[in-house]
């Protein structure tokens, strides 16, 4: 039973890897950006666990800025993915412009809240 489970896990990972490598490069870049943002957020959480939450607004704005850019990047990826039928009539420039606008608003709020 255990052996079949590990074999299943290996098969699964291999299938995921092969399916993922088929995605276009621009989407992979966005995925790397998302991973970077989430990793930064995790570092901040570990830091707060070590040092304490004193300027809580700074912690909150830092973590939420990482999570926010990750979410926005995922939304951009959804809109740029050619396989999504719902978004085939949105021009990629329009999707990117929306992404930039949303990021500008997000970072304005972050800078205000950073304290």
């Amino acid at each position, binding site marked *: 039973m255990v052996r079949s489970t590990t074999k299943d896990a290996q098969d699964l990972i291999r*299938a995921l890897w092969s399916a993922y490598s*088929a*995605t276009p490069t621009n989407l992979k870049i966005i995925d790397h950006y998302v991973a970077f943002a989430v990793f930064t957020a995790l570092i901040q959480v570990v830091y707060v666990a070590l040092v304490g939450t004193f300027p809580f607004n700074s912690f*909150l704005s830092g973590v939420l800025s990482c999570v*926010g850019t990750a979410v926005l990047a995922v*939304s*951009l990826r959804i809109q740029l993915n050619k396989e999504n039928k719902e*978004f085939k009539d949105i021009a990629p420039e329009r999707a990117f412009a929306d992404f930039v606008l949303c990021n500008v608003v*997000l970072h304005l709020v972050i800078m205000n809240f950073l304290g």
Partner: protein
Amino acid sequence: MAATDAQTSLRHAFGNVLAFFILILIGVLAFSIRLFSVIKYESVIHEFDPYFNYRVTQFLTKNGIYDFWNWFDDRTWYPLGRVIGGTVYPGLTLTAGTLWWILNSLNIPLSVETVCVFTAPIFSAFASWATYLLTKEVKGPGAGLTAAVLLAMVPSYISRSVAGSYDNEAVAIFALIFTFYLYIKTLNTGSLFYATLNSIAYFYMVCSWGGYTFIINLIPMHALLCIVTGRYSSRLYIAYAPLIVLGTLLAALVPVVGFNAVMTSEHFASFLVFILIHVVALVYYIKGILSPKMFKVAVALVVSGGLAVCFAMIAVLVAMVASSPTMGWSGRSLSLLDPTYASKYIPIIASVSEHQPPTWPSYFMDINVLAFLVPAGIIVSFFCAKIVCLIFSCYSVEFLTKSRWSLLLQACFSPLSDASSFVILYIVTSVYFSGVMVRLMLVLAPAACILSGIALSQAFDVFTRSIKLQLPSLSIDSPVDAGDGSSESVVPDDTVKTDKTEDTQKERTSKKSRSRKSSSESVEKPSSKSQIKKRLSVLPLETSIIAIVLLVLLGAFYVVHSVWAAAEAYSAPSIVLTSHSHDGLHVFDDFREAYAWLSHNTEVDDKVASWWDYGYQTTAMANRTVIVDNNTWNNTHIATVGTAMSSPEKAAWEIFHSLDVKYVLVVFGGLVGYPSDDINKFLWMVRIGGGVFPHIKEPDYLRDGQYRIDNMATPTMLNCLMYKLSYYRFVETDGKAFDRVRRTEIGKKHFKLTHFEEVFTTHHWMVRIYKLKPPKNRIRGKTKKSKSKANPKTVSKRKELKRNPF
């Protein structure tokens, strides 16, 4: 074809222009229906809470935004003070201040009071336009216009947004509807631009009203509903996730909310659904890139391994939440979720009259006709209106084959879209909350208007289409009117002509003509589907005409009721009272008389004590420091004042003297029959005071469980400060001291005040102001304890002991 295209686009253009003008008229209607109080009385600010907002706006316009943001108010809650910048929802004051600033920089010199008075009608016009936009996203422009008209006139919204009612709800309802519109728009289009606008509108809502927690819980509920019913789509992710991140940040920016945005239970639902939607998005993504067999393997693996981690995290979360006594919810939210909570634990919230549950008639008073149009709207959102025709045309069931039945049923059930499921969730939750507190009928009003607009517009659609398809003069245009397909240019003429002959016959004979038609139509197979739809959507002509007339009558009743409610029931400024008698109109302006007396005849630093109802008005109009006001944030302070009002004169004098109070203000309605005076509120003073100071016991003031002030009242009642201050010298008015509100003669008629002196009583005895007598300067002999000198002597001795040497 080109001709019909041009005609269609011309008609569309005409429709758009017409809709634009109708919207302008709706805005004018919403503005004007709220002006009754300005016409009947004057342009004055109403009630109690608006006076505080007015005072804050005055400060803002005079001193600028930085001083406003950092303002510490030392003229209320003496000696505690109040941090205005951190405890007020700034949206309303900033809006009115901006409006005033814009107008003044354009050299239109309106005073701050005028801008404050007219802010609410202006924003109600904006709210009806927002309702049009929201309903247009859900159903279509016709339903949008109907819903906008209904909202412009719905009495429950009028009650909180008349000209002069300068309160948070005036702008908050506009922000609520606008935020919902942008959410639905993002859900329908999946564009990040609208998601950004949605977050900014949500920020405006958080700035304006504590009711923003309704939005931040309704939207996650709707997202959860969509996920659970299998309607997850990437548009839902784009609509939900950026709103939560940006929204939480923006909510934390407002000082009143601050870190509560991430630490209280009101927001936890949004975070939970945020995590859940990411999990669901990941699952859908993996399902998309894997083959089905591998996906099953993945599910098995994840379920076994991930479930353990999940349980651990949930256990930690539950422990964290359960460790706080209120499970993280604030008192106000708990009193909404559990209707019995406030009366058990927070008597101040329970004592406010607008926090009581509504009675059944108040639903009909406040939303009138919409009360029974809402279920129709819910049904219309679930099915398309052809089911109405199905009920009417069931007489023709025997000649319809099974295949045609199934075709018809398919045509009937249009799928429930995301937007309509949102509106239905909105109405269900708002109906529950409006049943808990009367003031939340206001949140029910937009939902009721949207659904009623949908129902009414669909009904009109069906009836007018039936009439249009049956009138002979329009038979030439019917190829353009038939929206079902382009292949029926020939057949509708036959249908229309034979339908016209149907009108003059009874139903059984019309069945025969229809069976004749059906035989002729069985030849043309492709158009038979659309023809069945068209034929079954046609109701008999007389029915349609009568139905339209009845619907118009229904609308007329609604309009008449709304205008009556606006004019008679909801336009009273409550600072000025009127009564009609046989010799004309009497105006009772006692409140402003008393506040003007205070502002002219007392020192600037004098402190005035009264029950918390009048705190805002005293600071705004009389400009004197008060002890407690309507913010009711400090229960112990209010209980101190309540205890003082319930104690005998000496004890009350001491309590007030320790608070540096100079004047005591009492509202008394016994001479004119004004029922909201302090004697009627007195039991609440006893209860609140007794909640903190146990020596005040409510049964001491009741005789056999009844609250009385006549000669059967208890001695504690007859000796308490409130009784004495209300009825001092009352017997001089008519010789018998008959209290017109309690409808009895009072118990103790002739008495003197030992520690207070009366300084002012208004014209109709409605407001009475007393001054604390200063402690005696000299004490004649400490050893002798004569009766007359006992009280002042011991009082002054105690005062000397307590007071500082210098």
